């Protein structure tokens, strides 16, 4: 009986730790996702490099005059964020609310 009780306590402790670990991981995941989103926005909405083309729109215009519409992009151009299923679901959620 004593032995079983000890085992139970150990398992309980382990579960607690695992849950804590999960929470930390989830927070980190959220942060990384946000970071990807921010970086992506920066990349697509035109810093010094994107007027020569981006990986999303291709580099066909490279070496020619930069087009004026290079600063516009649509949600479907967010290929990096869209690679996350949860991002897609969140977007759908946002659209449903509207």
């Amino acid at each position, binding site marked *: 009986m004593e032995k079983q009780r000890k085992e139970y306590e150990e398992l309980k402790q382990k579960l607690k730790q695992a849950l804590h670990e999960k929470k930390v991981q989830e927070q*980190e995941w959220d942060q*990384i996702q946000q970071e990807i989103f*921010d*970086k992506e926005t920066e990349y697509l909405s035109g810093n010094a490099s994107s007027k020569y083309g981006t990986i999303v729109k*291709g*580099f066909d215009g*490279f070496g020619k005059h930069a087009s004026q519409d290079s600063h516009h992009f649509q949600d479907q151009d967010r*290929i990096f964020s869209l690679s996350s299923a*949860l991002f*897609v679901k969140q977007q759908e959620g946002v659209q449903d609310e509207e």
Partner: protein
Amino acid sequence: MSFERPQDPSSALEQATQDVSNLKSESRFLLEEIRASDLEFYESKKRFLNKDTQIHKFIKQHGSLVDNPKEAEFQERIKEDLERCHQLQVDKCTVANSLLYMVTKHLKKVQANIEALEEDGLLAPLEDDAVELANELSRESSVLSSGTSLERRKRTVAAGTLSAGSSLRKRVKKERGRSTQRDGMLSEPPSDEASSHGANFADDLQDFNDELFSLNQQEEDDKQLYCFCQSVSYGEMVACDGPNCKYEWFHYGCVNLDEPPKGQWYCPECRQEMANLKLKKKKRV
């Protein structure tokens, strides 16, 4: 490295543009692949969470002393789903890494071409404004709010890739216009700018891969980021004597130094700043 030596800057540029023309669809395809894996991952997760709830429900209804005839089966299924999830995550990492590899391959090739052209005297070495562009870009990226130190390192990698890539692009573009004027002229020996950029990038990439495959690895003591390139400290470093210098320390390679400078040394940014101040004073007088 074995590669065809480019004949002149404009054909090299054309070749490079052609090389990256597939990158658009390739990256889209790979990222969609990741997305498909991710969707499958969520399906699996939903499935095993559902099984888990069923087990909970049974215990609530019958108490924990009654044996659940399905529990063993459920546990088996949950385990299967969890293993599947793990495999999916590993696959995603592989796909993401191959995208990184593709971009690196193109970048390396362009760098090698530029170096070869500089060696042959067909291309003038990089000038200051391109360096400043790179430096502007890395500042742009470092303005973003910072997360944990681990993430900050990852972000530096991204910033490094970005600035290295764009400064290269800028360089190619600039040189193309100039090549007509410089035809036949002998240019100075190639600066180490290109090689140092290459080395930085390679270092960053190495860092990134290390991180990917051994997340538990101990981090270096000095996590502070220095220099235009916003990397950690390595090799010989030089301090800027400018009182308001943003960066303070620079890698020798990044500022074209081989030995300790004599007397006061100011970084390009501070030199520019000082020149501007002087100009203003003159105007006032």
